[in-house]
């Protein structure tokens, strides 16, 4: 073990601390070009990351920036600054530490560029902005280390891809730069190592002691979970019991809407008035910060939360994590469990609360996976090209560039290691000329090639606009919600939700029921309203699909037929299903057909996750329409798709023909809303659409038009355009998730178990209760519109 020099050894001794093995390993290997540390929360990860920096800066000789710290959360950057400042002051080290995020003042930012601190703590977006300045070479000259925190989260998103492109630029500016990644437990550390390191550098992976296995169980309730739905209201008394028995409980939900409903119901039943708070990404920042502060101060007994607390601050005293709703993904579950008991070497305690009968099975499968340390992860493809387009613009803002050098730099970023020349040229062409088949913008190129071969902005003033649009986070159209009459801001709702409100409607936000009063200057004005049944606001939170691996576990559980670990109500239900029909199994696709309520139903248990089952529903109904089977609608869950129509399906096999499904996808994708949404995100990142700013929106929207029009125009006149190709790739992996349909088709190898039944089966019954039924579009929408228009005219006495 490397002995620590004087101020450090004394400081550790004074604290009564000693170095964890992984902390000394990090010190010993600090000269490595790249290092990845996998450690559970509470494992002294941050110190392990910063100790080499503090040591190297201790003699006060380093000039300029030494270490850059990047985290996905602004709050984390600020928190780390406070946590680092303590030891630095106590040891009287000559080190200046500052953070720089979207919240940093303009003057502070100016000063930081002129005189960079030794340690700068920032976010991927703020860093991308920094490297876009012409003086970036001066700011980052002499940079020695970069520490990427929560890299497991960043590596799954475009924010991470953007960060790696920025690091590639930093590496060019400061060739001696060493990279360190700090990660929670993950399924595939090697993938994250490749993501982090400069390609093709090696990256050693250091594993901290993961600590004891968590104590994790399913919450047992007197009342069985309902057949469908996601609210888990049935478990409120049992959850309150648990809150009472623990110091501090985090109650995780999969969606913001569910968190709001649960919180509301929890308070209706909270007879002891236990202090319970709510925290999610759509709440106003001030309100979130209050909850965080109360939590740190130990004033709250529980927080109902979403993914907004997946990352970040050390909460200290959490001794129980409750996951409401199926965990969907084992890796995230394990990371959430890790939020409990941040003391090293104490087992975390967690409870799973299935929201409905089927989720009981999924929870059991997840418990087994956690016990087996079997984490899941769907490997991410190569870095997306929309982010690359944005980075070409960023490079151009910083100054003229050589295309070959830029390509080489991009390829040194892990996610873009396999970038081809042709892909790069496409992106450059798109950024320079728009990349249209019709060469329209030769005079008005965005980038121009100079006589010396370097590329530069045609109009240097456009750099301002480009900088305003840096970033890959998509804020959908959100409207602020505020109490009427200069009241406090409560949070945000989607514009489409606000549009569905009429004055007098009530909805839940931040755990309060509020009454919609009206829309004023892009703000939803509300007033307090007690005791009415509220609507549920839709929030733009991510909806996760159950992972492939977890779905396979559920199928194997069915196949093994050992239900002893399940509660009786669930066992009985599955037994009944096995008796009247059969249970789904890994090697075949179970398809049931039965009449119900005057309609013919078909239920396909694909276990491909919500998005893929949804896509399957769209493709099946399209095929059925072509075969004159008159489908009327469908509904999809993570496990199955239920289609209903006028005529029975007698032979399902042709419906599931892989080639026919793929062909159907081609045609269907074009006009699809999912594609338009995906297009909008990619087009914004790639710089085709400017982010709308509040001010512009206020001053009349006549000037701006919907991105759908751009999509339609491109699809009509330039179907092979780069952005449409990007959109297609994204949708196939994301919302359309056709990959998982293909995976399912490969798994079943054409084997279909078709059970023709006289009535709805136990497994299919919950699907009839599911919300989110999709009517078949086409003439349907116009008919709907006609009905509503007639009704309104009648009501107004105009017809």
């Amino acid at each position, binding site marked *: 073990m490397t002995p620590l020099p004087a101020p450090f050894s004394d400081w550790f001794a004074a604290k009564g601390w000693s170095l964890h093995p992984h902390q000394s390993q990090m010190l010993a290997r600090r000269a490595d070009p790249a290092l990845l540390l996998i450690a559970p929360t509470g494992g002294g990860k941050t110190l392990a990351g910063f100790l080499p920096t503090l040591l190297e800066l201790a003699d006060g000789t380093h000039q300029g920036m030494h270490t850059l710290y990047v985290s996905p959360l602004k709050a984390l950057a600020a928190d780390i600054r406070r946590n680092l400042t303590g030891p630095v002051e106590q040891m009287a080290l000559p080190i200046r530490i500052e953070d720089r995020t979207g919240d940093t003042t303009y003057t502070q930012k100016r000063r930081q560029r002129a005189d960079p601190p030794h340690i700068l703590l920032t976010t991927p977006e703020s860093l991308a902005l920094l490297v876009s300045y012409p003086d970036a070479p001066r700011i980052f000259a002499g940079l020695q280390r970069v520490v990427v925190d929560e890299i497991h989260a960043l590596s799954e998103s475009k924010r991470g891809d953007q960060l790696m492109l920025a690091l590639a630029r930093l590496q060019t500016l400061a060739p001696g730069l060493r990279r360190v990644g700090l990660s929670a437990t993950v399924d595939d550390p090697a993938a994250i190592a490749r993501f982090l390191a400069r390609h093709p550098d090696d990256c050693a992976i250091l594993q901290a002691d993961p600590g004891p296995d968590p104590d994790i169980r399913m919450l047992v309730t007197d009342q069985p979970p309902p057949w469908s739905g996601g609210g888990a209201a049935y478990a409120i008394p049992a959850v309150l019991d648990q809150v009472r028995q623990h110091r501090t409980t985090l109650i995780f939900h999969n969606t913001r809407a569910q968190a709001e409903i649960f919180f509301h119901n929890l308070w209706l039943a909270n007879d002891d008035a236990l202090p319970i708070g709510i925290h999610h990404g759509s709440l106003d920042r001030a309100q979130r910060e209050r909850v965080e502060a109360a939590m740190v101060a130990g004033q709250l007994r529980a927080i109902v939360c979403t993914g907004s607390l997946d990352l970040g601050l050390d909460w200290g005293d959490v001794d129980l994590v409750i996951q409401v709703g199926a965990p969907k993904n084992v890796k995230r579950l394990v990371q959430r469990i890790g939020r409990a008991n941040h003391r090293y070497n104490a087992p975390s305690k967690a409870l799973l609360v299935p929201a409905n009968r089927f989720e009981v099975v999924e929870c059991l499968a997840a418990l087994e996976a956690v016990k087996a340390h079997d984490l899941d992860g769907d490997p991410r493809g190569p870095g997306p090209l929309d982010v690359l387009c944005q980075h070409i613009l960023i490079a151009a803002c910083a100054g003229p560039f050589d295309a070959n050098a830029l390509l080489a730099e991009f390829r040194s970023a892990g996610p873009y290691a396999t970038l081809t020349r042709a892909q790069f040229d496409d992106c450059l062409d798109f950024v320079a*000329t*728009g990349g*249209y088949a*019709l060469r*329209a*913008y030769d005079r*008005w190129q*965005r980038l121009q090639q100079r006589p010396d071969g370097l590329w530069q*902005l*045609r*109009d240097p*003033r*456009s750099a301002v*606009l480009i900088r305003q649009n840096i970033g890959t986070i998509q804020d959908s159209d959100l409207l602020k919600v505020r109490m009427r009459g200069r009241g406090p801001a409560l949070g945000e709702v989607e514009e*489409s939700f606000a*549009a*569905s409100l009429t004055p007098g409607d009530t909805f839940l936000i931040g755990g309060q029921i509020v009454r919609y009063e009206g829309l004023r200057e892009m703000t939803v004005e509300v007033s307090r309203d007690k005791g009415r049944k509220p609507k549920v606001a839709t929030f733009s939170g991510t909806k996760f699909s159950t992972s492939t691996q977890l779905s396979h576990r559920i199928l194997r559980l069915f196949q093994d037929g050992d239900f002893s670990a399940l509660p009786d109500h669930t066992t009985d239900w599955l037994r009944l299903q096995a008796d009247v029909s059969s249970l789904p199994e890994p090697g075949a696709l179970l398809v049931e057909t039965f009449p119900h309520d005057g309609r013919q139903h078909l239920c396909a248990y694909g276990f491909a996750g919500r998005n893929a089952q949804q896509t399957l529903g769209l493709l099946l109904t399209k095929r059925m329409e072509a075969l004159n089977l008159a489908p009327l609608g469908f509904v999809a869950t993570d496990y199955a798709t239920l289609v209903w129509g006028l005529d029975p399906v007698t032979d399902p096999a042709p419906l599931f023909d892989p080639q026919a499904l793929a062909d159907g996808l081609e045609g269907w994708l074009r006009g699809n809303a999912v594609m338009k949404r995906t297009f909008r995100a990619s087009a914004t990142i790639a*710089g*085709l*659409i*400017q982010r709308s700013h509040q001010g512009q929106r206020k001053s*009349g*929207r*006549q*000037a*701006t*038009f*919907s991105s759908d*029009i*751009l999509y339609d*125009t*491109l699809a*009509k*006149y*330039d179907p092979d*355009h780069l952005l449409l190709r990007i959109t297609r790739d994204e949708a196939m992996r994301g919302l359309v998730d056709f990959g998982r349909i293909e995976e399912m088709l490969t798994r079943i190898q054409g084997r279909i178990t078709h059970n023709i039944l006289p009535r709805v089966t136990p497994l299919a019954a919950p699907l009839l209760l599911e919300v989110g039924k999709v009517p078949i579009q086409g003439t349907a*929408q*116009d008919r*709907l*519109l*006609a*009905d*509503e*228009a007639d009704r*309104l*005219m009648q009501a*107004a006495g*105009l017809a």
Partner: protein
Amino acid sequence: MNVFDFTLAGAKLQALGSGALYWPDQRLLCVSDLHFGKAERAARHGGAQLPPYETHDTLTRLEADLAATGAATVVCLGDTFDDMTALHELTEAEALWIARLQAGRRWVWIEGNHDAGPIQLGGTHLAELPLPPLAFRHIARPGASGEVSGHYHPKARLRTRGQSLSRPCFLLDSDRLILPAYGTFTGGLRSDNTALSDLMRPEALAILTGAIPRPIPMPR
């Protein structure tokens, strides 16, 4: 052709689902706010390079409406060009296309706020066109009657079960008609904006564009 029939100041008119207005007695087709060259204007100003197909797409739709109605007179109700530079930068093919559409027809360019100036393509250039009982101008004038105008790009939102639709629309009351923007790259102003709700009478209708034009009480 699906149309919505109505009368304004005694003139029998038809709202087309495309957003064009047809006056059968005069064999007159009126379109507003074509905004040709909008994409190029954005590129010229150093912004994004939007798909350069909007002029082509707008002309395609206009040609289809001319064929369907057999109109003998065409009134472009202003803001035909996104700015005067856009007018000069029409491609040769586009200028020829317009000339082909003009052949054998009376063609009137009404001046708009984006294209206030003479248009050197064929046809007549006017500040406004009186054609009793109607008057065609770009921006509605409070107090006028029998007036057909554009400018505002009105759109209306309609809630149906479970979803909300937003469509460009005509606004109609006993005094005036406001046309939706016909150009492909045009946004809209919600009918509940005070600029529109102050202008239109309380009993005004919004005629939604789409495959079949449909009237609803103007949302405000």
